[in-house]
């Protein structure tokens, strides 16, 4: 009897400790399970978790949030490019190209993805997000021999697009 009490008094808090550590780690909330199916888990999770609507969103809602994040990134890219046109005039040509590309992403890719998700024909959204990943890459490629001053912006835009495409694929 004494032995049983001794073990019970130690095993119970141990069990709670164990469960407290391991259960949250294996937490299966929707953001976690969605983001692990995208090419950039960290980026996906950080964007979604920082949006207050994500807690109550379904997968389609998470996709909309990601498309919205791309929209913000593309909009701020345009501002940054505008400033760089003043401070780095020798990069005028690739910068103007990039400006066109981010305008394109906003006007076409983001719009199409948003509509596809909103209306319920997600395959068109996947295509347009794949397209915008490519367009962001093209902006980067336009710099050729020069160091690109907006590499991190381009990489983000590319990766957000790829993540959005992967989320949309889950709806198909």
């Amino acid at each position: 009897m004494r032995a049983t009490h001794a073990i019970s008094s130690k095993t119970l808090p141990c069990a709670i400790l164990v469960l407290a550590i391991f259960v949250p780690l294996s937490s299966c909330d929707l953001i976690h399970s969605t983001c692990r199916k995208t090419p950039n888990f960290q980026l996906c999770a950080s964007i979604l978790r920082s949006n207050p609507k994500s807690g109550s969103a379904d997968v389609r809602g998470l996709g909309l949030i990601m498309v919205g994040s791309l929209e913000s990134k593309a909009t701020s890219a345009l501002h940054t490019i505008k400033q760089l046109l003043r401070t780095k005039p020798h990069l005028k040509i690739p910068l103007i190209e990039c400006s066109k590309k981010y305008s394109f992403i906003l006007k076409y890719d983001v719009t199409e993805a948003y509509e596809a998700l909103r209306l319920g024909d997600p395959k068109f959204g996947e295509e347009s997000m794949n397209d915008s990943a490519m367009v962001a890459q093209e902006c980067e490629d336009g710099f050729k021999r020069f160091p690109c001053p907006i590499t991190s912006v381009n990489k983000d835009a590319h990766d957000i697009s790829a993540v959005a495409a992967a989320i949309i694929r889950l709806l198909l």
Partner: protein
Amino acid sequence: MAANRSLTLPYDPELAVSDAPLLEQSDQAEVSGSSGQSRQRPVKVLAGIFLSSLFLLTLIWTLFQGQEEPRDQAQMINANLNKSSPSSSVSPYSLIPASRGVPQGVSEKTFRGVSDANDIYPWTNAMLSWQRTSYHFQPEKHWMNDPNGPLFHMGWYHLFYQYNPDSAIWGNITWGHAVSRDLIHWLYLPFAMVPDRPFDVNGVWTGSATILPGGKIVMLYTGDTDDLVQVQNLAYPANLSDPLLLDWIKYPGNPVMIPPPGIGKKDFRDPTTAWLAPDGTKWLVTLGSKINKTGIAMVYETSDFKGYRLLDGVLHAVPHTGMWECVDFYPVSTAGDNGLDTSANGPGTKHVLKASLDDNKHDYYALGTYDPNNNKWTPDDPELDVGIGLRLDYGKYYASKTFYDQKKKRRILWGWIGETDSEAADLMKGWASVQTIPRTVVFDKKTGTNILQWPVEEAESLRFNATEFDTVKLEPGSIAPLNIGSATQLDIIASFEVDREALEATVEADVGYNCTTSGGAASRGKLGPFGLLVLADGSLSELTPVYFYISKSTDGSAETHFCSDESRSSKAPDVGKLVYGSTVPVLDGEKLSARLLVDHSVVESFAQGGRRVISSRVYPTKAIYGAARLFLFNNATGVSVTASAKIWHMQSADIRTFPDL
């Protein structure tokens, strides 16, 4: 009015899958095994074992969750490789991802720092305007997708289609409309329907026409409502005696079908043409959906096309195929050569069930038997069921739909050929997508396992200037130019005979060959590839091989593959570079035969009388206008091939606006 019956599947395999059933079973075995012995042991050991098991369970479950990731990614890679999507592999050609072109695995979809190799292609107006087709249906400008409601009425063939009036990308969908006397020469008409009601304000989507005895026409179509729910609506011509069917009335009582319980509000679309129920007075119509990942077709019954009752169960379901879009369901005659009215059934018929899979953007079909009394369609071969077996077309092709042509007693198939270039190029050129040349569909009586598709005979009216090449001997590794002048608008019928002795002498060759993974016509085998090079320039810097490839296994059986190879079709990096194709049945005594319709940036290729079909989009930068050439080739190493070809030039179909409307 709207049906409220809930859908119950007798068994949903999806529901049987859960995260850790194996672990639970073994866990239980462990506990019950040990508890058998522990009846004689103290409670403390039981508690310890239970807690350890629980700990182990959560630990293993955590790891199991982690393992899902690579598996899902592997599935995603495979899915992406099978469909058109961006890529950035390290090979010289397919560097820059194309939105609908080069395949890309998830692991390859990484951002690259600037490098010299990745040139963005400077498309010129000349290159882009060349891409426009001459005799395939396409609107003057902007985006098109699914063909809708095809029908024949008062001497005119009608085609409706999903259309964006504002832009060359998908959106703002209306019903475009065009008519033709002969399925080839089309005249544009005003829009048939625009999104202007609460029940379709967010999209006038795909639908089908039913012609009732007496000639009355009803159109069922999907509307995306103001609440963003997918519903089915009824529309009918304002004036049935108008041969052009210019004006349409939407039934004020719409929607007539709303998503039933258990079906997602965004998973309910594309109603088919209706067929008569066994009682001869009611009509049945089907549309696709999904339950978890099982694709289904459900059936509604109606007597007036206004009130509908959902039938119990589903017409058919196939697990792991995902959402079924653009379902099509129709009989084919097993004995005769004509098409059949959609209501035909009984001895001498089989039913084709077809679905467009949202998952991978391919159209699949299967032959089977329809039992209307039990609302069941059963495939002839469950291994080749809908979504896992035969495809209608192995290339860039989707959302196809048939109709019964009562004038010539044919079943006619329309299909949407999208673009595989970049969206930016589509915006630059101002348009996207074409329709196939309409194809007749009949049952293949010789094989019994597939349908045959063939361009409608009216296409032949465009032919002129025939040139014949007879018995051209092609040694291994040879190319023969076919000097026919201009090579961008062609109708080609070619046949190939492989040297019999060499074929029989070859014991084994390329077992496991697969068009899509083969690397295309540059990959030489003993018994293939051989065929045609279309849209090739004189120096072969750009070329599109359409070819046969024979593989043979040690038991002596040979398999013939039919492929369309876009991998070297263009110098531009931002276009699709896939190799499409599949095996094709070839019966004893048959030569290998192919028909190709070349029309600028579209190539439709038909093997063995239409047993297999491949639609390709190609966007050459050099092999355009007068620089495009045509060749025969044999790139096999072990066998010579004798080829014959008859080639016609094709006139323009002069597709334009209906005059004086």
